[in-house]
């Protein structure tokens, strides 16, 4: 191969190789100087070189294709070896040359050997160890190595780089436009532009006369004119035609498919089959085992066979299958046009023609109500009939008729509104309940705020704003006793214990316990004895309420104990056993709103430490030790023994006015100023079981009957509404609430109607007190 090299380039390379040779030869010397480590490394290389020595001949071929580092490394070594050898071979042919030449050649070549830069750097690293400071030498050797590797490549190369004269590199040549020279040659001397003083005329003449003008091109590097040879012209043509430059290259050579599906006797790779392809897979076995287990356990079921029947939308699925022609029965025919009659005729009989009055009437009639939409007219002949002016209009209406005609008969659902009302028993079946006003208890001169009935049902007490408390005989409406107190009476409550005859009366900030002296003599005297037998305890407690025994005139009137509170007392209520008395002093800012007095011990306690809102009314549970406190929006149920909040009832209203507890103790009704009455079932929920809105105005008072399933509410609209409220013993059945009667009687005074209601303890009678100063009994 080498001998084929020709020209200056080959010489240059040879020179380089020679230089390399020299360097290599010198290396051992450096090694000896450098130390053993470096030498060892070198030895490795040498060994590698030795082993691969034979292949090194082809190293040039392989080098261009392979890129991976390892191989490169090896190949590099191989190259080294090969180079060494080749250089050895070429040693003989060494030609003499300058170091300058070599350097410049290296510089020129460098940019073309991009792929080998990494190699070079690695080489450099290696060399760094060996050669220490003598980098220049190494680099020279490197470059020589590069050139040697590219020897084969340039074998047929016709590139004119070989005769490079200009060293300015790949720059736009316009930069030298204004200079006399065009660059520098290898020796650094200026290359002057050829003297050409051709003007346009010369150019033209040249073009005309020179037959080779067309194949003359200017070499930009040297500025010289070059006449292209025939081969070069041919090459240009071929390239212009998009063909390969090489004439001999056959681009349509048949391809050889090495890796085909055909099993060859001599396969491309002869790798034997793995062992694992012969033995059964454990992983598969495990997977199959799991599937089998799952099938046994029924976790996996055989896939359902796909339904082969195609799915269609049944247009008439909803139709009643029994009515075979249901759809046709529902058919609504398009409206038909009326057939023309005599009145449409151009020559109608005279009876169809309208007289003058009829015509006037027709004109005045609304077009919708006209019997005929046109006026019948008579014409002498058919020819005289003009165009019908309403034609378009009538056609349009006809189209509307067709278009707006209903397509289906409408099935009207006839719901009797009566059926929507829940079935409630008739009030008639729920007797007895109060129905008529029987007695009017007259005597008070101002509104009667509160009434209460004695446990025997024989007496009634009423407290009024005229600062009196009156005692009435229920059966005759006779006022038996009038007791004057020092202020407008806000609340009265008869002690529910039949063996005690006491009435609590609240006015201003005072609560007075009265002994009315009615009923059994023995009971009255026993009550007086009970009160007078009280002994002052040893230690005097500091109480917020002052207890005092009434004396003198007050005692004559029946006053027994006077309780002075810090604030105005609005409501008094007794506990069922008659010893405890709860008083309400509504005050938004204080925690002292409710006090509970124990009459036998003359003790007062404030059950609540915190103010939870404006207290409206309180009540004791009839059986259990619970205490109900109604604030504006909530009713709180406290357990007095455990001293904790048991329940909080949400009344869903704005302002609770009154509250009553069912004698069974599981139901509560609340009246509110926003006209509602809420029934709570304590077992059911903290929300109202039922809300009744029968009253037109604010409710002032609610009450339960002690025995009968009745409750009543009194309102500002002057009416008392009595409802049947049956509570069942079994927990499954919800209370039955039926409004049964509206009782009217009170006249509305100062926008106030009924202020208090209460039931007779044994009879189905209800008492109501009103702003008109009367108490009324309804039976």
């Amino acid at each position: 191969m080498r001998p084929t090299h020709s020209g200056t380039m080959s010489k240059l390379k040879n020179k380089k190789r020679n230089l390399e040779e020299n360097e290599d030869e010198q290396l051992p010397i450096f090694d000896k100087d450098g130390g053993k480590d470096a030498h060892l490394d070198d030895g490795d290389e040498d060994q590698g070189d030795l082993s691969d020595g034979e292949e090194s001949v082809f190293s040039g071929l392989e080098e261009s294709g392979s890129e991976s580092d390892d191989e490169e490394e090896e190949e590099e070594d191989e190259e080294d070896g090969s180079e060494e050898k080749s250089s050895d071979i070429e040693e003989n042919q060494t030609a003499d040359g300058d170091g300058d030449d070599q350097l410049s050649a290296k510089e020129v070549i460098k940019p073309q050997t991009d792929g080998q830069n990494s190699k070079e750097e690695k080489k450099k690293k290696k060399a760094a160890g060996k050669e220490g400071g003598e980098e220049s030498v190494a680099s020279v050797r490197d470059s020589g190595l590069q050139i040697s590797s590219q020897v084969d490549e340039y074998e047929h190369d016709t590139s004119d780089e070989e005769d490079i004269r200009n060293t300015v590199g790949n720059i736009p040549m316009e930069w030298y436009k204004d200079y006399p020279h065009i660059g520098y040659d290898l020796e650094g001397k200026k290359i002057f532009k050829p003297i050409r003083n051709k003007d346009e005329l010369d150019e033209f003449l040249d073009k005309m006369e020179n037959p080779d003008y067309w194949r003359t091109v200017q070499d930009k590097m040297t500025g010289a004119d070059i006449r292209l040879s025939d081969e070069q012209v041919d090459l240009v043509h071929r390239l212009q035609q998009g063909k390969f430059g090489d004439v001999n290259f056959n681009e349509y050579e048949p391809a050889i498919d090495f890796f085909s599906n055909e099993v060859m006797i001599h396969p491309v790779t002869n790798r034997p089959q793995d062992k694992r392809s012969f033995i059964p897979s454990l992983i598969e076995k495990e997977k199959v085992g799991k599937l089998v287990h799952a099938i046994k356990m029924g976790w996996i079921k055989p896939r359902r066979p796909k339904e082969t029947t195609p799915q269609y939308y049944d247009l008439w699925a909803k139709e009643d299958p029994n009515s075979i022609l249901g759809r046709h029965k529902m058919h609504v025919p398009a409206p038909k046009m009326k057939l023309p009659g005599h009145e449409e005729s151009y020559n109608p009989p005279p009876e169809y023609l309208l007289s003058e009055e009829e015509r006037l009437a027709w004109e005045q009639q609304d077009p919708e109500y006209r019997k005929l939409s046109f006026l019948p007219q008579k014409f002498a002949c058919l020819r005289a009939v003009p165009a019908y002016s309403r034609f378009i209009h009538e056609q349009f209406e006809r189209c509307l008729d067709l278009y707006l005609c209903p397509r289906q008969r409408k099935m009207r659902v006839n719901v009797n509104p009566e059926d929507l009302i829940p079935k409630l028993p008739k009030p008639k079946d729920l007797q007895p309940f109060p129905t008529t006003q029987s007695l009017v208890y007259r005597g008070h001169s101002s509104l009667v705020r509160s009434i209460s009935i004695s446990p025997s049902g024989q007496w009634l007490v009423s407290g009024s704003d005229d600062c009196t408390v009156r005692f009435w005989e229920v059966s005759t409406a006779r006022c038996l006793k009038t007791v004057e107190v020092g202020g407008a009476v806000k609340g009265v409550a008869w002690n529910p214990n039949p063996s005690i005859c006491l009435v609590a009366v609240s006015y201003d900030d005072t609560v007075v316990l009265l002994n009315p002296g009615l009923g059994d003599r023995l009971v009255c005297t026993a009550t007086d004895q009970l009160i007078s037998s009280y002994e002052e305890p040893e230690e005097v407690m500091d109480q917020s309420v002052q207890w005092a025994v009434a004396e003198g005139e007050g005692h004559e009137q029946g006053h027994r104990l006077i309780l002075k509170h810090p604030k105005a007392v609005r409501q008094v209520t007794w506990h069922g056993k008659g010893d405890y008395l709860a008083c309400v002093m509504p005050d938004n800012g204080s925690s002292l709103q409710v006090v509970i007095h124990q009459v036998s011990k003359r003790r007062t306690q404030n059950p609540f430490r915190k103010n939870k809102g404006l207290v409206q009314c309180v009540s004791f549970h009839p059986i259990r030790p619970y205490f109900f406190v109604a604030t504006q929006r909530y009713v709180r149920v406290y357990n007095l023994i455990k001293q904790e909040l048991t329940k909080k009832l949400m009344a869903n209203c704005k302002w609770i006015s009154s509250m009553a507890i069912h004698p069974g103790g599981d139901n509560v009704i609340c009246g509110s100023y926003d006209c509602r009455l809420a029934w709570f079932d304590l077992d059911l929920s903290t929300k109202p079981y039922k809300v009744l809105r029968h009253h037109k105005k604010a409710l002032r008072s609610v009450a339960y009957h002690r025995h009968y399933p009745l409750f009543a509410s009194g309102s500002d609209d002057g009416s008392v509404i009595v409802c049947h409220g049956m509570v069942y013993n079994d927990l499954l059945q919800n209370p039955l609430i039926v409004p049964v009667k509206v009782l009217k009687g009170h006249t509305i005074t100062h926008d106030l109607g009924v202020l208090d209601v209460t039931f007779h303890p044994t009879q189905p009678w209800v008492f109501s007190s009103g702003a008109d100063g009367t108490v009324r009994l309804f039976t």
Partner: protein
Amino acid sequence: MSQVQARFFTENKKYLIDDVPFSIPAASEVTDLSAVINKLLEAKNDGHKHVEFDFLVQGQFLRTSLASRMETENISTEDVVEIEYVEKFTAPQPEECIMHDDWISSVEADSEWILTGSYDKTARIWSMEGKAVMTVAGHTDVNLYNGLSSLLLSASLDQTIMLWEWNSERNKVKARHCCRGHAGSVDTVAVDPTRTKFCSGSWDKMLKIWSAVPTEEEDEIEEPNRPRKKQKTEQMGLTRTPLMTFSGHNEAVSSVLWMDAEELCSASWDHTIRLWDAETGGQKNAITGSKVFNCISYSPLCRRLASGTTDRHVRLWDPRSKDGSLVLLSLTSHNGWVTAVRWSPSHEHQLVSGSLDNVVKLWDTRSCKAPLYDLAAHEDKVMCVDWTENGLILSGGADNKLYTYRYSACVSDAGA
């Protein structure tokens, strides 16, 4: 239709006419029929004076035209109609109006005297002319009810019954006995026909029988060492304890009466009327109503009980019926509670009732749709009525007035 065949008959011999059917216009009313009878009588005897008659068709007074009546009663116009005629009851004539100081709670009268109890804690004796004869004051509380004859009984809200002895010549009253034992206000007393015993009913649900014979001995008292006993005895009379106590009512006893010497009847707020054997104290029968009973009255003439209740009706009961609660008749015209009811002592069909609607009504059971007369003199609730043997109707009420009416029901047909 215009004419019907009618035969008139009467039980009064004075007004007998021939027993032949007459043809009379169907549209004729009471006045027309009365004119017919008068004509017939005039024709019969010359000295006949015009008398207003009332007519009964099938035991019921005729108030509308004969035709409409026959229609409602389903009487065929083909047949001969039997029409009874009686002398028309003249309206009760108001006689006296006796003013009291307070509400009159009870009234009782005999042929000479009127005894009233009042809410001013006194009982008063009046002459028939309305003169106050005597005031009996002794109770500490409202007076309620009275016994009769020279011995007076007064029951009171103070839970006692006083037995007074009244000497009408000297006009002096002496408290003989104070009957203590009730634990509630005593609402009613009744003296038995033999006038040896009396019975009282109270709010404490008890009925007690006491001896009505005044004695000089005091019954045993529960408190032996009573201070000022002598003084008290002079004022209040000797203390007396009940002979017998009947318990059975669940509510206050509102009214009690003797049906005969052995049988007691009581009405109560527990919606029952009970019959008691006065000897053994056992309950014999019970009539259950639907409302509170305010008052009852028994007529030995027709053997019926009349009751006034806290609804608007006067109801008639048969106390002998075993099945008890069967209302024979309801007399409905009042607008308030019926507080007092009293049978006529001389007429088996007539009774008087007083109500909270301020009206006293006179009824004839043969005309149950409407009362015979409304006596609307009271201005307030009527609390009590009475009817004496000599035809005097008395009523007292909350307007503090006691009205008396002379009512001359014909005694002639009472015995029938």
